[in-house]
């Protein structure tokens, strides 16, 4: 898994390699300095050898400057490497997601994908930088320091054989006990979030039923449950610093006592003791850093897993090997089509057989959940059939290049989405090269030109994210115009005029009939009036075709159609959307 994610380093690999080398240089010089210092004291200061002091001093200063350059360089290049790595990882992930089908996106959910692309990758970036910088530094420092300590005085250095494992055991135990507790803390935070969120959203209900006390109790319970685990977890983790101090002070005292004896005994020199003390500090410090690194790494491991899960997810829709790149006609055939969504397996469409001639206008009517949308989504391969086949221009849709197919099948979706940008930008989604005249023409067909012109900035009016500054009906008309600009062979309107008033709706229908006779048109609607003029109307009920015919035929032969018709006449049928 880590290897797979690691592939994303690519062009930043050189920075990632330079960084630990620079760290090694820095660390090496840093650990060497106390050794030189002992030489300086024992051979320079005590005998009063000024020349030696000067010579060694300059040498050491140059060394520290190199070390400084190494350290700063490591920071710089590790940041470059990790930020670049994160960029590539985001790139790979996002591009992979673009090939996902809707089932795949639904599988992960939008918010979880956003979190993976932002927070999770940020965690990995941090961990990666740590890996090539701090994680390289701590073990090096440990090894160098212990080696140097043994070089200075092997007998005295034996103290590390006791203190290092002692410290290591202490830290391991703390992490082992603390970590599961921290995991629990995060879970309990979810509980608190839930209580607050539900309270904020439901504040009208809370106030109506006077449930402030009950809500207080819930919040108190959630905050207590965090407190219990969190304070325990933190208290255990905080034992780290007194333990570290204890071992460090113990080591110092040991070195002081036995060092003094050895110096007096003549087997050791004062400078050596001073440098040993410095090494003791670095050894214990590096252990501490190591434990931090370890802790951080495991946190980001969870993030890495979440990213890998997406990266390795195989999209359920794929392009055929030798795809067809030309759609001949707007003819559509449904041949014994069964369909079920993968996630629940419930059959949505059953044994659908339907032949649609090029240029025909087909109305589709049926209750919510009867399978109307599922039926038309099979045509541009938003989903694939479970059994049977869907053909466009006498070829199975699965044999076409997906892009070719979708360029020829224009679909106005039920959830009509506009993107932030001007109206013209949004319309040009249909055809990037469209001229202004073409935009106006499409907008006229969709009965959108009038209202666009009434806006202060006309076609340059900026659409907010999600299209919040135009009304539902206007949005629907814009999305229809956008679909028309593609000049497709097949146009599908999935309940796309529900927020448009009946008069405008009929203008759109007329325009379609008169201006676009060659285009095959499939119109899903709730209102009978929207499909009344179609060549044929398909009535769908519970995933099956109940009847096919013209309005008059169905009024005579089909009970369900009559029922729908009657209910709309009686009820006045005004879909007042807000």
């Amino acid at each position, binding site marked *: 898994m880590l290897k797979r994610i690691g592939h994303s380093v690519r062009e930043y690999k050189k920075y990632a390699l330079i960084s630990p080398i620079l760290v090694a240089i820095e660390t090496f010089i*840093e650990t060497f300095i106390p050794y030189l210092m002992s030489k300086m004291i024992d051979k320079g200061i005590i005998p009063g050898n000024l020349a030696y002091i000067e010579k060694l001093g300059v040498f050491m200063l140059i060394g520290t400057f190199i070390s400084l350059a190494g350290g700063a360089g490591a920071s710089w290049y590790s940041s470059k490497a990790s930020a670049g790595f*994160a960029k590539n990882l985001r790139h790979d992930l996002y591009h992979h997601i673009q090939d996902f089908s809707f089932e795949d996106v639904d599988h992960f959910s939008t918010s979880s994908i956003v979190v993976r692309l932002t927070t999770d990758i940020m965690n990995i970036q941090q961990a990666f930088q740590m890996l090539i910088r701090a994680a390289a530094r701590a073990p090096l420092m440990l090894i160098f320091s212990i080696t140097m300590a043994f070089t200075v005085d092997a007998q005295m250095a034996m103290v590390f054989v006791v203190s290092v494992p002692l410290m290591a055991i202490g830290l391991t135990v703390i992490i082992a006990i603390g970590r599961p507790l921290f995991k629990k803390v995060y879970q309990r935070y979810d509980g608190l979030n839930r209580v607050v969120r539900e309270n904020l959203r439901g504040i009208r209900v809370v106030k109506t039923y006077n449930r*402030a006390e009950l809500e207080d109790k819930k919040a108190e319970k959630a905050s207590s449950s965090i407190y219990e685990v969190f304070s325990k977890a933190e208290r255990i983790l905080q034992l780290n610093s007194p333990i570290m101090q204890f071992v460090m002070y113990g080591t110092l005292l040991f070195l002081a006592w036995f060092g*003094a004896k050895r110096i*007096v005994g003549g087997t050791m020199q004062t400078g050596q003791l001073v440098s040993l003390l410095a090494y003791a500090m670095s050894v214990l410090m590096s252990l501490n850093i190591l434990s931090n690194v370890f802790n951080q790494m495991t946190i980001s491991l969870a993030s890495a897993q979440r990213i890998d899960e997406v990266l390795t997810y195989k999209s359920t829709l794929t392009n055929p090997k030798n795809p067809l790149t030309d759609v001949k006609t707007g003819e559509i055939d449904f041949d014994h089509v069964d369909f079920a969504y993968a996630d629940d397996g419930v059959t949505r469409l059953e044994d659908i057989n339907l032949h649609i001639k090029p240029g025909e206008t087909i109305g589709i009517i049926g209750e919510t959940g009867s399978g109307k949308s599922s039926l038309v989504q099979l045509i541009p391969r938003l989903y694939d059939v479970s059994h049977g086949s869907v053909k466009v221009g006498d070829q199975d849709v699965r044999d076409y290049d997906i892009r070719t197919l979708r360029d020829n099948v224009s679909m106005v979706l039920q959830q009509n*989405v506009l993107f932030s940008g001007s109206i013209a930008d949004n319309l040009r989604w249909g055809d990037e090269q469209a001229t202004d005249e073409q935009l106006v023409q499409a907008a006229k067909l969709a009965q959108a030109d009038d209202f666009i012109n009434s806006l202060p900035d006309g076609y340059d009016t900026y659409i907010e994210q999600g299209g919040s500054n135009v009304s539902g009906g206007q949005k629907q008309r814009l999305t229809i115009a956008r679909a028309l600009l593609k000049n497709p062979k097949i146009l599908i309107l999935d309940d796309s005029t529900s927020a448009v008033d009946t008069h405008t709706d009929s203008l759109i229908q007329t325009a379609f009939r008169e201006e676009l006779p060659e285009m095959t048109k499939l119109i899903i609607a709730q209102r009978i009036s929207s499909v009344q003029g179609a060549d044929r109307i398909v009535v769908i009920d519970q995933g099956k075709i109940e009847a096919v015919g013209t309005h008059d035929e169905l009024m005579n032969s089909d009970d369900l159609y009559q029922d729908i018709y009657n209910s709309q006449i009686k009820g006045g049928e005004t879909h007042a959307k807000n």
Partner: protein
Amino acid sequence: MQRTRVAGRAKLDGSAWQILWRLLKYIMQKSHFALFIAFFSVIVSAGASVVGTLFIQRLIDDYITPLMKVAHPNFTPLLHMIILMGAIYLLGVIGTLLYSQLMIMTGQKLQKRIRDEMFTHMQQLPLSYFDSNDYGDVMSRYTNDVDTLRQMVEQSFPMFINALFNVVFTLTAMITLSPTLTIISLIVFALSIFIVRKLSSKSSYYFRMQQKALGNIDGYIEEMLNGQKVIKVFSHEDQAKAGFDKRNEALRQDASMANGLSTMLFPIMGNVGNILYVLIAVVGGYFAVNHITPITLGEIAAFVQLSRSFSQPIAQITMQLNSIIMGLAGAQRMFQLFDEPVEQDSGDTTLVYVTENEQHELTETSERTDKWAWKTPEKDGNVKLTPVKGHIEFKDVSFSYDGKKTVLHHISLDAKPGEKMAFVGATGAGKTTITNMLNRFYDISSGQILYDGIDIQNIQKASLRLSMGIVLQDTNLFTASIRDNIRYGRLNATDEEAVEAAKLANADSFIRNLPKGYDTVIDGSGSDLSQGQRQLLSIARAAIADPPTMIMDEATSSIDTRTEALVQSGMDNLMKGRTTFVIAHRLSTIHNSDEILVIEDGRIIEAGNHESLMQEKGEYYELYTGKTILE
């Protein structure tokens, strides 16, 4: 990570000292003793570490060097010294243990207390607070802000004080050892602090940029994923990828700069310590050899050690100062919430259960009966009981949120007990605002609203709201069992009553079909129930409360026709015998209303029943025949 990310954002308006002082007072209220002990423990811990460094000098000068000169060294004084040091060290360790544990306890208790008190306070805030604040923003006060505050108390406070005393002690020790060498050290440090400040102000700029770039990319992903079907249908994948890559590259640049500059601080501070270390040794050695200033070998050794450890606390202070500012920003946001004025309530009329005898006299009772009355205390000390009927009158009511723009104009209406009154109008016309006046989610600006003849200003808000059930489009269920969700309407309802309410709401059959029936635990955000089923539960919740008046927001068309019919009949069941206000979204369900009010721009433009309005051939007629549409 989290901390550095927030660093860029940390901004304080107002005086940091004021917030700090207020925060300290807040903490002191509960944990003054622990804080006091912790403060001294920090000083002890810092002292022990400085004394420990000085110990090396004493060891070399006072013990090792003299002992080297005698033939038969006596190690007893040295042993005593070691034992004494051991005791001091132990004291330091105990100090560290004490303050770290105490501060954790303080911080943890503080975070719990803040959360509880914030929540309790929030429950008392008027609805305008909830309507005008972003939920995400409020929620982050409970999590992110409290967390940074906790970190500040647990770590930054003690570390800052520890580092501060460390600097003071170390500096004192250094001056005592050698003023000349101290000056050299200080110059080098001044230089390094200057570089650090430059770097950190630069890096915090890039952190802010990174944060912005991150927000930018976040919004882009969200927009693209939400519109993914459209992207597919129009084969716009390449453009979507290109747009992403552009933002991604911007993020990389800022992240690289921000991290590059900020992580550079550590090697700089560390190596400055080393440079100083060498410098002191050279200069000190030079002094000692040439006898320029009286300095001993031990003093040099100790000074070298001191100056090396000096860089640590200084870096610490800069870092902690940053997190303290961040923590204070969190504290400020928390105090802001505390400072929000709570909902005012001057009503003294309350809702009580009563029994009625044959002479129609009412007697208050603590038990639940099927009759409610308004209980108003009178000046003479008696109480007046008015039977609750559900008669509601608006008399020339106007309303403005801000005192400038009037959103309701001269609304007058009269809903007799048991009548059904429907509001029709476009989104934003003021339908919901009228009902908000009724249960006093907002208070009217002028005019009067009477409930059974009593001005609702005089009714205690809790009682008023209890007498009015609501069924909203946003069903707002809570994470709990279905039974508890129904019982939210009346906490002491029995299981049988819950089932009865569910039956009335047409919810019983679907509930029974669930594997665990009434004990099924549902998720408040509700992915496990359909919109229609949630609607049915909210009807059942209102039914169990059994209020004399109902406010109903009709379901929109997002539910399937069969469930919609169930919801409609459930609502009809609930309306029976109650004064009901319906916010209508489709006209087919309201013909049977006693009165239909057509609202436009906060005014009633038409009123009457279905027949009379159809004859009028006005706005209602236009709507009904589909000539215009509500948008």
